[in-house]
């Protein structure tokens, strides 16, 4: 299929998926909406849907809200990193689901460095975040090496690892690290020079971490499409026997992809921690890893589309949470709506018939062009 048709198809497919998802969402909202009669329910539902779609950007009076926008942007930071991590691991056909535990462990390790290690100036910030990344990279060696050397399923391993990480952190916090002067389980406050400065001072917690995220996105793209390692990772994902036959080291690639993914997740955890909080207080898995998988799938495993996909997910999350507070739609409904949108996007067969038509037309055009060229 030609590039033009390919883009056209992607666009039409995206819009169609969104339209159907919104329709389903509307029906769900309508079913659960408050109201005495049909008309009232309908107007409440429309108000709720409007809330979901426009409130992440606009104020009540309809004017543009830069604060709302920065909240949405701040929401992209952690899922950009988990999205990138998942992109790289999935590109190599490694279905490692460890970004979830990874971002939690990264945040935790970063927090410990930020609390206890006395380092001068911004050096502490840099070291803390890197420590988070390296810690998770090392942990990801477990599923990666087991997969590469023994063929153990990385999916099962990394999934279980998430819970190991969560309970291990819980144990360490409760037993040794909690600030005993506080009523809830949290660490002592971070040192002042560990904090990542805010990009805008409006309480939205949009830190410079966002810019770092965008830079990492570009670096990841270069890594994947402009280096031999990224090339090896992508080819392994496309056809592993081909990579082996070509003389590349498949085991090393399998390990590299997962370790790098772990590093990105941990690094993102550190950025999120130092950009948004001043103590560590996560008790459960944050969910950013799961959203990161969605982001990676939406981005088609291409790092360059990760910010867009992250923005979409963050916007959706923000819109839904505003809808649930302002428009009286049950919070559970939010997850359902998100799931519907995601399913339609991820379904390979969605509009496959239309795609086939485009392919056929493309092929016919090419043939016609070739014959024309041949006649000259």
């Amino acid at each position, binding site marked *: 299929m030609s590039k033009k048709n390919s883009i056209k198809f992607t666009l039409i497919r995206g819009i169609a998926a969104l339209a159907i998802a919104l329709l389903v969402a509307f029906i769900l909202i309508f079913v659960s909406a408050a109201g005495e009669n049909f008309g009232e329910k309908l107007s409440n539902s429309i108000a709720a849907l409007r809330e979901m779609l426009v409130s992440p950007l606009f104020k009540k009076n309809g004017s543009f809200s830069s604060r709302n926008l920065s909240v949405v942007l701040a929401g992209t930071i952690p899922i950009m990193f988990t999205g990138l991590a998942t992109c790289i691991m999935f590109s190599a056909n490694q279905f490692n689901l460890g970004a979830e535990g990874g971002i939690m462990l990264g945040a935790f390790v970063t927090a410990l460095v930020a609390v206890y290690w006395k380092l001068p100036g911004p050096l502490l910030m840099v070291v803390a975040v890197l420590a988070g990344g390296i810690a998770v990279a090392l942990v990801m060696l477990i599923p990666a090496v087991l997969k590469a050397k023994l063929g153990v399923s990385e999916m099962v391993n990394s999934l279980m690892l998430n819970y190991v990480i969560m309970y291990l952190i819980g144990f360490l916090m409760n037993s040794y690290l909690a600030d005993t002067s506080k009523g809830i389980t949290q660490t002592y406050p971070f040192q002042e020079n560990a904090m990542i400065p805010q990009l805008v001072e409006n309480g939205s917690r949009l830190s410079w971490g966002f810019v770092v995220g965008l830079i990492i996105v570009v670096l990841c793209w*270069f890594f994947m499409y*402009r*280096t*031999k390692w990224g*090339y*090896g990772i*992508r*080819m392994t994902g*496309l*056809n592993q*026997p*081909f*990579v*082996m*036959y*070509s*003389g*590349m*080291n498949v085991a090393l690639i399998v390990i590299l992809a997962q370790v790098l993914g772990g590093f990105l997740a941990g690094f993102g955890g550190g950025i999120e921690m130092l950009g948004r909080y001043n103590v560590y207080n996560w008790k459960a898995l944050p969910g950013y890893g799961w959203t990161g998988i969605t982001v990676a799938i939406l981005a088609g495993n291409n790092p360059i589309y990760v910010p867009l996909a992250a923005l979409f997910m963050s916007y959706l999350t923000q819109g839904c949470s505003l809808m649930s507070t302002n428009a009286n739609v049950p919070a559970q409904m939010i997850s359902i709506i998100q799931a519907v949108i995601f399913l339609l996007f991820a379904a390979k067969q969605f509009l496959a018939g239309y795609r086939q038509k485009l392919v056929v037309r493309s092929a016919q055009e*090419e043939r016609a062009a070739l014959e024309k060229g041949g006649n000259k």
Partner: protein
Amino acid sequence: MSEYAIQMKAITKVYPNGTMANQDVDFNVKVGEIHALMGENGAGKSTLMKMLFGLEQPTSGEILINGQPTNLSSPTVAISKGIGMVHQHFMLVPSLTVAENMVLGMAPTKSGIMIDYKKAVAITEEYSQKFNLPVNANAKVMDIPVGMKQKVEILKALVRGAKILILDEPTAVLTTQEIQDLFAELKELKKQGYTFIFISHKLNEIMDITDRMTILRGGRSMGIYETKDVTPEEISRLMVGRDVVLKMEKEEARPTDEVLRVRDVEYVNEWGKKMLNKVSFSLRKGEILGIAGVEGNGQKELVDMLFGFNHPNAGTISVNGENIIGLNQRELREKHISLVPEDRMLYGIAADATIEENLISDRSGSKELNNGVLFNMGAIHRMSDDLIRDYTVLCKSRSQKIGSLSGGNIQKVVVAREFSNDPVLIIADQPTRGIDVGATEFIRKKLVELSRSGIAVLLISADLNEVMELSDSLMIMHGGEIAAYFEDTRELSDELMGKYMLGIEHQSPEEIRRVCHE
């Protein structure tokens, strides 16, 4: 009741991609006979049988089962007409027991819900005794030997009411004893009125067990014969033959130093079958050594040994005096060994990657294509464009997905990569299988050109034309051994080749030993 169990009349099959697999084939099988269907790989045997089992529909022609015109639209219909198929690669669920496999899809139930396992075992044992095909009903399929798996497959077809059984190369995976058992069982079933179609290209088996045979060549029928009326020589002449002879112009070979040295290589596969037996040969700079033979006689195993996909149980292999057994593909490529793989879609390319990405797979870490940590995209583009031009790959651009190219152009990309990395030894395994004439001619010319420039070429091909025209000297493999060696291919005839390929004749050890050039 018709005398014939099956009559296929004037069957023609054209696949959507334009391949004519069968052309005007007449095929008939009498009730209660064992009928051999013979032919080389690609002769159209599988297609014909797929149509009989309802997996494919004929483009034109008529099929009669027991005298009745029948539309075999699916395997379900074929089974209901009493046709059963025993596939070469068993269609069994390894983690289930024999009894469970036996009743799969038609399981007896208790009160309609729970599977009645006891009854499944009873059915299995009943059929096993009735047809004298002993199997262990409670054993898991993954734990039983290959011979028993085959019995399970046959019983499975019988349980489903098959009267006509298609056996697709049933002896390919069996040991000699298991083959004897199978033949005894088939003869017994034949007495009970069952009809068999026996697909094979092993002559001695055909002579041993079949009543009549149909020989296919190039998609056409070469006729139906009574087994007792034909000699192995006649069969081999009918089966093996060349349709068109493309003459290759090539200079006299002037072989020099030994490059590849294979001595006494032996390999026993996972089922305990000896696939390579004392294989020894030498290949020298500047010559093309061909390996001919019917597929499945050890060629695949030999290539696996040479390119590190498998390791021999005994023997030595060296390239330019250095051992290569135990090396992985990266180390082999560092020794400048190239392979044009038989399965190009599995090993040769990544179909969803671009042409360019496929061209650099063996050299992505090279100095020329990297600038520090980053790819040197300029150099990569230049190299790709050069190769696409030199190998006349018909495409829109280097960034087109390779999977969208025709087979011939895909193969040109593969050879462009394999031939351009300064090889000392090229292993070309079926280099032109299934590709168009233009690409075939191009690749053959290239192989001759490279060999004349001092590269050692090992050519493995099931295409007689190809091995005879391209090779300077030629080996024939049969039953995992080198059956013959011919120093000069020009004095060879198809008939003589056929005799060695089908195991009718075998050279003396001294004659074969000449290929070691000692």
